[in-house]
């Protein structure tokens, strides 16, 4: 009970603070967190890479890595790769949405369909998307298509699951109201279920982006000649460890920005459930 009271008190005092204060808070604590992160990086780097025989790896330390990152910003190849990587997850997630959104809506809407699909979906969902890699290479002649396939396979499940969950959480009064007003099944889906599920759909997009961004890098080791994963692989082969580390940082930054964007969009579509 002590813990619960403690938590309540702190959430309350946080919620009471105004938006400016919240921004200052999150900036401040974000900076503190990043400082700790840097310290750990330096300390670990110091102990690992300053040992005799490991000097060649000093590129992994913060200073050379950040330097290399600045260098990357002026390289055309880097930006081409960023765009290529973004395009891949974009196309992959788009395909996943085209398939997953209607599937999720239908599964959420018709409980029999949900019962039928539950077991196979839960089963396939647990298979690591990377284990489809050999199959993808057999199925598709081009690496590019194989990558789309793999991203789609990785992201379609969170989209289906979250969308159908969103549908099952639609306020039953909205459904009754629409039926009472004479809505057909199709109108029910389009005018009630779909908009009501938008918060859940955006959550699924956020999850999908996270998964896609993680899967992308190993998938880009596949033998293509662009993409952030490709640059990492390339830098390893040419022993440019500062460059390698810089791309790792870039992957983190781009991923963070993507996630932050979706979070912002989701704020706009936060239906409060009171009315």
């Amino acid at each position: 009970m002590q813990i619960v009271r403690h938590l309540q008190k702190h959430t309350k005092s946080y919620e009471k603070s105004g938006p400016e204060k919240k921004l200052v808070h999150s900036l401040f604590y974000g900076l503190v967190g990043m400082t700790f992160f840097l310290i750990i990086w330096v300390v670990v780097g110091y102990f690992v890479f300053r040992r005799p025989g490991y000097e060649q790896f000093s590129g992994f330390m913060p200073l050379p890595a950040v330097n290399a990152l600045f260098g990357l910003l002026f390289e055309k190849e880097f930006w081409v790769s960023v765009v290529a990587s973004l395009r891949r997850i974009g196309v992959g997630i788009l395909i996943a949405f085209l398939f997953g959104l209607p599937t999720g809506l239908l599964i959420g809407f018709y409980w029999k369909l949900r019962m039928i699909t539950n077991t196979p979906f839960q089963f396939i969902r647990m298979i690591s998307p990377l284990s489809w890699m050999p199959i993808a290479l057999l199925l598709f002649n081009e690496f590019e298509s194989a990558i789309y396939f793999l991203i789609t396979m990785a992201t379609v499940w969170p989209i289906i699951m979250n969308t159908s969950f969103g549908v099952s959480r639609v306020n039953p009064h909205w459904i009754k109201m629409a039926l009472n007003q004479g809505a057909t099944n199709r109108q029910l889906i389009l005018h009630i279920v779909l908009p009501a599920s938008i918060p859940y759909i955006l959550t699924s997009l956020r999850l999908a982006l996270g998964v896609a961004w993680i899967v992308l890098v190993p998938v880009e080791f596949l033998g293509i000649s662009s993409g952030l994963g490709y640059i990492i692989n390339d830098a390893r082969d040419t022993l440019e460890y500062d460059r390698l580390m810089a791309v790792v940082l870039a992957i983190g930054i781009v991923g963070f920005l993507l996630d932050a964007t979706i979070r912002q969009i989701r704020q706009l579509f936060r239906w409060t459930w009171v009315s």
Partner: protein
Amino acid sequence: MKIRIEHLCKSYNLPGNENLPVLHDINLSIKSGDFVVILGASGSGKSTFLSLLAGLTTPTSGKIWVQENEGPEKEITAPHPSRALLFQQPSLLPWLTVAGNIAFGCKIRGEGNDLSYQVNQFIEMMGLYEFAQTHPPKLSVGMAQRVCLARALIGHPKALLLDEPFGSLDTLNRTHLQQELINIWMGERFTAVFVTHDIEEALLLGNRIVLLGGRPSTVKDVFDIPLDYPRSLEDDSFFETKKDILKAFRCAIANECD
């Protein structure tokens, strides 16, 4: 709209093959233009009853018939906008504005003729003028319920089914909305079926009160309320009628008859 209810029974299937009888052998005739109040304790099946009238739930046995303007009697099998329902809790769509919510039914039914003019009329009638472009989460419960009332009324329903619509309002708002509802009903003369557990509210609104009681619920008694509209709690005649009715209630429910 005339409504005739014959041997209506409803029981719910509970998990584990259990059966919960809620309504038993309800027989009732509602005249066109009546304001009928269904009075019963919470859990007595009032919402179930309205849901059956709306066609959102199917009866276990028995039938409900409706008849419009001396036309043929039709059995209720599905929901229909001519029997508009107002819920206990406001059920507004948070992604639409107040105006959008009011227009919702007409939009999906494709009744587009000067819709915005009609919506504006209802917005003005309900005193929602400043809120036309507001989204529901910013409204008070009273405002939200006004919007729901406007949404129910804009399609000019032949019957209005109200499920304790003012139950979550404060006294001031409730009194206001009760008066507005009576004014609208006197103007439009739709059939109103109003569900409540509040005896005073029942007496303020209904020209007939149907008393539900027992387990499962049946119609215990039906009272005609001969008071003129608009009624007021302060009137002596209201007070007298209330005393009579309370006595009759005791007689019907607890068998304590004088």
